[in-house]
C-alpha cells in the first residue's frame, strides 16, 4: 500500500469499487476536463484518463490527470506503448509520480491505423506485459529497465492492466491475465461487458487459475446511448461482443415510445447488478465517454453510492 491510492484503499478494504473514464479534449482547453470531472465527482473512486485513445491526438493523460487532481478527483493515468519508447515512458512516469499520480494503467495501445495519424511510426518498444514488469521493477526493485539503480524517490504506482474476455483465442484469455498479474498488475479493468455468458465463463477460468485472489478485477461497462451506437459497437469495434438482446431491448423501448437513453442506462445497471454477483468481481469500470452525465444516475440506481472516503 505504498501508492497512497484511494482506489487501492477501496479495493483492499473489500468494498465494491467504481472507476469512471474521461477522454481528454482534442485541444488545450483545461475547462473540458474540469467540466467532465465535476460530473463524475462523488460517484467514482478514481477516473481513468485515456492516453490518446483510438490513436487520436488529445491532451496528454499526465497533463489531464493534473487538472483532474485539481478538481479533487483521483486519476488512473494511462500509458500506452504505441507512442513512446522505454526512455520516454520511464521519464514520463517519474514525472507522473512526482506530480502526485498514484494509479497507472499499462496498455499496449490501440493501433494507429485507425487514428488521425495513420502514417506515424508505431513505437511498440515493448508490450503491455513488459511495461507492467518495467514499472513494477522501478517501484519494487528501484531499477530502471536497463538495470541501473534508481537512486532517490521511486514512482509508487498502484498498477493496473486491461483484459478482454471477448477476444480470441478464448482459452488463452485467462492465462494472459495471469501473465499480467505476474508481471505486476494489481487491478484489472475489462473490456465492456455485454455478453454475460462469456464473461461468466471467463471469470470461471480466471478463478480456476486463482488469479482473482491475486488482483482486483473490475468489469467494464457502458450505457448504450442509442440503437446506432449499440449496432456500431457490435459490428465495428474489434474485440467487442454485443449480443442482439441489447439491441432488441433498445428497439423495444423505441417502439414503446419510451426514452432509448433511459433504457440504455437500465441495461447498464442490470449488467452491474449481475456482475456484482459473480465471485471475484471487485468493482466496475464505467466508461461513459462523452456521456459522463449518465454516471451519477447509473451509480445511484446500481446502489453504488455513496462512495467511501
Amino acid at each position, binding site marked *: 500500500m505504498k501508492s497512497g491510492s484511494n482506489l487501492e484503499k477501496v479495493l483492499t478494504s473489500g468494498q465494491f469499487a467504481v472507476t469512471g473514464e474521461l477522454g481528454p479534449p482534442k485541444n488545450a482547453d483545461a475547462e473540458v476536463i474540469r467540466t467532465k470531472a465535476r460530473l463524475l465527482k462523488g460517484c467514482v473512486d478514481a477516473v481513468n484518463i485515456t492516453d490518446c485513445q483510438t490513436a487520436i491526438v488529445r491532451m496528454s493523460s499526465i497533463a489531464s490527470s493534473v487538472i483532474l487532481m485539481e478538481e479533487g478527483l483521483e486519476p488512473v493515468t494511462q500509458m500506452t*506503448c*504505441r507512442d513512446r519508447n*522505454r526512455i520516454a515512458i520511464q521519464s514520463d512516469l517519474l514525472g507522473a509520480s512526482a506530480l502526485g499520480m498514484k494509479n497507472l494503467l499499462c496498455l*499496449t*495501445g*490501440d*493501433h494507429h*491505423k*485507425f487514428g488521425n495519424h495513420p502514417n506515424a511510426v*508505431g513505437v*511498440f*518498444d*515493448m*508490450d*503491455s*506485459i*513488459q511495461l507492467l*514488469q*518495467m514499472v513494477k521493477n522501478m517501484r519494487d526493485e528501484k531499477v530502471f*529497465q536497463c538495470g541501473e539503480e534508481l537512486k532517490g524517490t521511486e514512482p509508487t504506482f498502484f498498477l493496473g492492466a*486491461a*483484459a*478482454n474476455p*471477448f*477476444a*480470441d*483465442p478464448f482459452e*488463452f484469455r485467462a*492465462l*494472459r491475465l*495471469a*501473465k499480467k498479474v*505476474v*508481471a505486476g498488475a494489481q487491478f484489472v479493468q475489462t*473490456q465492456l461487458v455485454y455478453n454475460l455468458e462469456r464473461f461468466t465463463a471467463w471469470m470461471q477460468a480466471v478463478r480456476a487459475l486463482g488469479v482473482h485472489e491475486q488482483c482486483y478485477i473490475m468489469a467494464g461497462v457502458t450505457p448504450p446511448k442509442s440503437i446506432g451506437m449499440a449496432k456500431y459497437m457490435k459490428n465495428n469495434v*474489434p*474485440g467487442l461482443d454485443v449480443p442482439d438482446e441489447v439491441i432488441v431491448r433498445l428497439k423495444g423501448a423505441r417502439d414503446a415510445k419510451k426514452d432509448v437513453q433511459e433504457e440504455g442506462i437500465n441495461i447498464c445497471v442490470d449488467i452491474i447488478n449481475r456482475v456484482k454477483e459473480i465471485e471475484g468481481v471487485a468493482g466496475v469500470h464505467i466508461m461513459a465517454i462523452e456521456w459522463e452525465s449518465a454516471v451519477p444516475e447509473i451509480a445511484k440506481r446500481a446502489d453504488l453510492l455513496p462512495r467511501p472516503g
Partner: protein
Amino acid sequence: MIVGQRKPIQEIIGMLKGIKKILILGCSGCVSVCSAGGEKEVEILALILRIDRKKKGEPVETMEKTLARQCDTEYLEELKGEAGNYDAILSMACGVGVNYLADMYPTTLVFPALNTSFMGVSEEQGVWSERCAGCGDCVLDRTGGLCPIARCSKRLFNGPCGGSQNGKCEIDPNVACVWQLIYDRLKGLNQLEKLKEIFPIKDWSSSLHGGPRKIVREDLKL
C-alpha cells in the same frame, strides 16, 4: 527473399527529368524472382520511359542490362569503365543494390525504380507476404517458428491483444492474427506451456535501432 514493387511510373519519370542517356539496370536475384526488377521488367520499364519521352518530344536513350546480383562487388564491377557513359543509372534492384551502386560509383547519378517492400514468401503466383523483420536476434524458437515482430501489427511478445477476433488482426480482416496462429501451432505441438512464460522486453540493438549493421567473418576473409 527480398520482395520489391516498382514505384509508380510518374514518380520514376519525375526523378529522371532532364536525363538523356540512362542505364536501366536489373538484378537477377530476389527482385527477378518476384517479377519486379529482372530482365523482363527492365525491358518493360525502358519501353515505358521511351514512350513517355517520345510523347513529350524529349527522347531518351535507354540501355538495358541485368546483373546476376547488385549486392555483390564482383558483379557490380562489371560496370567499371561503362558507368561514366550514362547520365544516370536507374536500378531495378532492391535498396541494397541502389546503395551499393552509389557506394561504388561516386560520380554517377543513381536512382531507385523499386520500393523495397519486405522479406517474404511467394504464397502463390502474384501473391507475396512478409515473414521476417530482420531484427538480428531471432526469437522463433519461442514462438513456434512464427514471428510476432514481422507478423503482429503491434509487435507483441506475450500473446494476442484484445483485438484478435476469429483469427484475424484488428487492423484488417484480411490479416491473420499471428498470435492465434502461434497459439494453435503450439497447442498442436503440445507446447502451450511456452506461452505462460513472460517474454522479457527485447534488446533492439541488434536491429536497425542499434545503427547500421555489419558482419565480419575472419575465418572467411582472404
